[in-house]
């Protein structure tokens, strides 16, 4: 055991200041004002969802006033729905289900897609053939229908819904990951890694994956938006946990009264729209920040 020469002495003043990658990344992200706006909106929604019981210590299912109280009446800022439940409370609590399902479905999509795509793209040959045929099988099924079938087959709970959405949306990620792995595996540093004796597992996860991440992260953000829309569609159709308030459920419950009480449908609709928009803007900003060609303009 040799003594470590006291953590690397800084030799003289540095003439060229090179930013750490994280700093540079943030600087690029902040340059895109739409992405910053998206991030702020999304952060606000996450905040509301996290602290819902603190902000509004009410049961969202409790009937508090006459049904179809218009927005602004009494203290009911967003009015009430068909059963006299407070819309504001429903929206704030609904954000929780939306984010949890959207987030975990997107996570699941990434895990399945990345595993399948990276194995197919790295090993090629018959592994690729088999995995890609499976991917194509999932691609040709109508996604919403398949998700409905899956939820209907099992209990309509939040985990089931998240899994069902994950199962129908992973194919895009798989194809993207495969393409990236196919490109990167031919680069010389992968050959170099093999020539120092690295095993496949290490090459896939430690050598290639970090280089394939940027497009996958952007894709993850966009997938999150898609998952949120899916969740809304499923709960609109009544295929979600009936005991959990969600935006799609509010729309579904009130869809027959669209003309009499338009706010009951438009308000959760706007909430969904804002969330998906915010997530997409974030994805856009990440894309710009990862793209070295946009640097130093």
């Amino acid at each position, binding site marked *: 055991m040799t003594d470590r*020469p006291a953590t*690397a002495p800084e030799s003289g003043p540095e003439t060229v200041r*090179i930013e750490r990658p994280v700093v540079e990344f943030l600087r690029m992200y902040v340059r895109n004002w739409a992405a910053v706006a998206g991030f702020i909106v999304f952060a606000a929604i996450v905040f509301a969802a996290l602290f819902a019981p603190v902000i509004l210590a009410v049961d969202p299912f409790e009937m508090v006033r006459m049904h179809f109280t218009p927005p602004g009446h009494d203290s009911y800022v967003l009015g009430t729905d068909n059963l006299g439940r407070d819309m504001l409370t429903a929206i704030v609590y609904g954000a929780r289900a939306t984010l949890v399902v959207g987030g975990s479905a997107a996570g699941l999509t990434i895990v399945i897609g990345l595993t399948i795509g990276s194995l197919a793209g790295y090993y090629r040959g018959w592994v690729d053939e088999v995995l890609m045929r499976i991917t194509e099988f999932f691609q040709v099924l109508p996604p919403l229908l398949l998700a409905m079938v899956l939820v209907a087959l099992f209990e309509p709970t939040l985990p089931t819904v998240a899994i069902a959405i994950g199962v129908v949306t992973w194919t895009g990620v798989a194809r993207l990951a495969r393409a990236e792995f196919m490109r990167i595996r031919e680069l*010389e540093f992968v050959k*170099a890694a093999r*020539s*120092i004796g690295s095993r496949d597992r290490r090459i896939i996860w430690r050598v290639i994956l*970090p*280089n394939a991440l940027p497009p996958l992260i952007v894709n993850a953000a966009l997938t999150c938006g898609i998952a949120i829309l899916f969740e809304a569609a499923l709960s609109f159709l009544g295929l979600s946990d009936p005991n959990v308030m969600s935006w799609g459920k509010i729309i579904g419950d009130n869809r027959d009264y669209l003309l009499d009480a338009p706010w009951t449908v438009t308000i959760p609709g706007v909430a969904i729209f804002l969330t998906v928009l915010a997530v997409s803007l974030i994805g856009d900003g990440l894309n710009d920040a990862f793209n070295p060609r946009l640097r130093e303009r």
Partner: protein
Amino acid sequence: MEAAAPLLEVEGLEVEFRTRQGVARVLDGIELSLEPGRTLGIVGESGCGKSITALSIMRLVPVPPGRIGAGAVRLKGEDLLQASEKRMREVRGKDISMIFQEPMTSLNPVYSIGDQIAETVRLHEGLSRRDSLDRAIEMLKAVHIPAAERRVREFPHQMSGGMRQRVMIAMALACQPSVLIADEPTTALDVTVQAQVFDLLKELQEKTGTAIILISHDMGAIAEMADRVMVMYAGRIVEEAATDEILESPRHPYTRGLIACVPHMEEEPPPERGALTEIPGVVPALTDLGSGCSFAPRCDHATDLCRSRAPQPFAVDADHRAACWLYGEAGTA
């Protein structure tokens, strides 16, 4: 001096690639032997099988479409072609390591160079992160990178091509391998940097006694570095001898062509050299080589015999062999 036992021996190595146009025999009967501390140069045009020879020694030929058909690669007596994949992973980087042509792409852009050098050491010697980083700093100093303590934390994009090739060399030599394969290590670098890299390789070789296989298409580089030279053409060895011998009296028409291609800076060139020449034509497609000498279509001396039968390596001198009908009779081989 020549008595040292061979460290690395390749015998009758054959490698084939399955392509859409048919089976291409990329290597055919490659023989080589390498003693500790010596340098063997492999020259030839692109597509002659130089890099595949290197990859076969490390058993890194992509296995479909490639296939190692026959032969043996013996490292200190152990046949690597028969070894398990696990054993091969131990050999790679520890006993035999390799540096590549493109220093711009052969380092992983997402890790610091220190991490990448340390990786080799961690993999083979099981050192802790801290100790392996110390080794990385040591190696950076050995390849003359200034301010190694600071540089060790930098990323590949912060370095020039020459610097990166030094880092590659540090990475390859971190576990003190007995054989270093340098696959066109300087082709992508400019001339002054090339000389520096060669000087560095020579210096490290003297210090550690590593044997080097230097692959190049540049006769000048080979002349400077190698003790012995092997000239390859279309997957075969066409001539082999000590470097001085080959440069002074090349026998195979292909070798002569290669040497004639190199411009010389002399006020009065010897009259026999003549004008700067080129070898007409290109390397033939390996899928349809036919039965004759593969160089025959481009050769001034080709006869009917050359076009119908491939020549064996003939001894043209002690320790100098050339696979050309000019130096042997059909009956004697």
